[in-house]
């Protein structure tokens, strides 16, 4: 039995081991990454495309990922950079899609579904109206559950900025949702008593 190119063999095996482990971790992180993509793009279709491009890039850069560091942070960074590149290429500003783009499918029937869809559309409008950096902040903290410190490191901004952006974003969303709910109530009230 010849000694053989052991180092080469082990490196290949280690590379494979990393790829196999990463496969599971990447698949598990896809929902988080897609939510982050949605927070960046504000559009479901764009989020799906961005997720795809991010995974594509991440797979070509696997050897650059340092084992022992946070894979989600690494992926989020690739996602953000990919979106910035995409944004530059499109050279567009403002909301990229119609609010009706978010076609959520809650498993409720009848009136509840209708109300729910309206509320989700209102939420979508509120989220669309936010600047991207506030929307991202909101998703990372409210949806993903990261701490201020983690988000500060992830986005490379001071904690004070995290707090102020987050406060402004939450306030805007809350105000927009209240205004929309009040508008709905008024519409219903104004229709009461009208002849059929």
């Amino acid at each position, binding site marked *: 039995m010849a*000694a053989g190119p052991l180092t080469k063999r082990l490196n290949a095996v280690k590379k494979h081991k990393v790829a196999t482990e990463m496969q599971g971790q990447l698949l598990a992180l896809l929902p988080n990454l897609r*939510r982050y993509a949605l927070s960046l793009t504000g559009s479901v279709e764009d989020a799906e495309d961005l997720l795809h491009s991010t995974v594509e890039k991440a797979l070509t850069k696997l050897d650059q990922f340092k084992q022992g560091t946070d894979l989600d942070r690494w992926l989020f960074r690739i996602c953000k950079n990919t979106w910035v590149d995409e944004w530059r290429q499109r050279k567009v500003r403002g909301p990229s899609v119609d609010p009706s783009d978010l076609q959520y499918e809650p498993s409720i029937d009848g009136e509840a579904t209708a109300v729910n869809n309206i509320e989700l559309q209102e939420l979508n409008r509120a989220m669309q109206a936010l600047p991207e950096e506030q929307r991202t902040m909101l998703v990372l903290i409210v949806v993903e559950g990261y701490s201020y410190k983690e988000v500060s490191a992830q986005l490379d901004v001071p904690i004070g900025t995290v707090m102020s952006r987050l406060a402004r974003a939450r306030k805007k969303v809350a105000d927009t949702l209240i205004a929309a709910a009040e508008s709905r109530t008024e519409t219903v009230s104004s229709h009461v008593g009208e002849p059929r």
Partner: protein
Amino acid sequence: MNISDEKLVAFMDGELSAAEMASLENTVSTSPELARRLELLCGADEKIRQGFAAFDARPIRADTKDLINNAANAADKENVGAGDNVVAFKAKPQLNTGATSSIWMRQAIAASIALVIGFGGGAFVFPGSGQTETSSTNNIYQTAGLVDNKSPLFSVLETSQSASTVQLEGYSNVSATPVSTFQTYDNDYCREFDVQSSGSTSRNIACRNGGAWTIVASVLHNNKSPDAGVNFITASDGTPQLLDAVVLQLIEGDILDKEDEAKLLSNSWR
């Protein structure tokens, strides 16, 4: 009391100090206006979470998942084709002696039990207690993982560089060749080495701890099966696969290069 939105959201997220949290909690409980502001912000959070939960219900695009799965499959193929000794790691090593060998392997990785090694034709034993046996007709098995510090193999492991073949004194036509040296997660050092004898070869891993060498895994190549009841791993073509699994469980970093290995040997493993 004028509480800023920043402070209120930090309160919601539990990002204030314990004292500030307690103080603000007390303030909220006595201020209906503050309680309402908090309620509205919490309500917005809830709506956001619901919205994203609904988004999560959409299936991930199949072509995105395929990217990941295809990459893993490609790594499989690359791994198999990387060299004549490369076998995919994914498959668990198949040990031909059933449950007993599996246990042996696990225990071996923990560097806690015995070596069993033997050769058809000539035979070779690593004495466990100063006893040396040889036989030209039968395999000799010994369930002792510790390499006798007076044995020629101990000397090879302790002092010989990788890729240098040393004839073992006192054994007919038996030689040993260190193959590689690496550090473990426990900061010990291990060596992979071959022992050749009359057309048969074993590939082994020994680890050094407290000045003693212990065999932690051994794979016999092209040899007949050992006697029934003996814990032994044989492999006709799966040697690298079996030992790779062990090495990968032990190794920290990479295989030492020639220079680092030479330094380590000349410094008596310090």
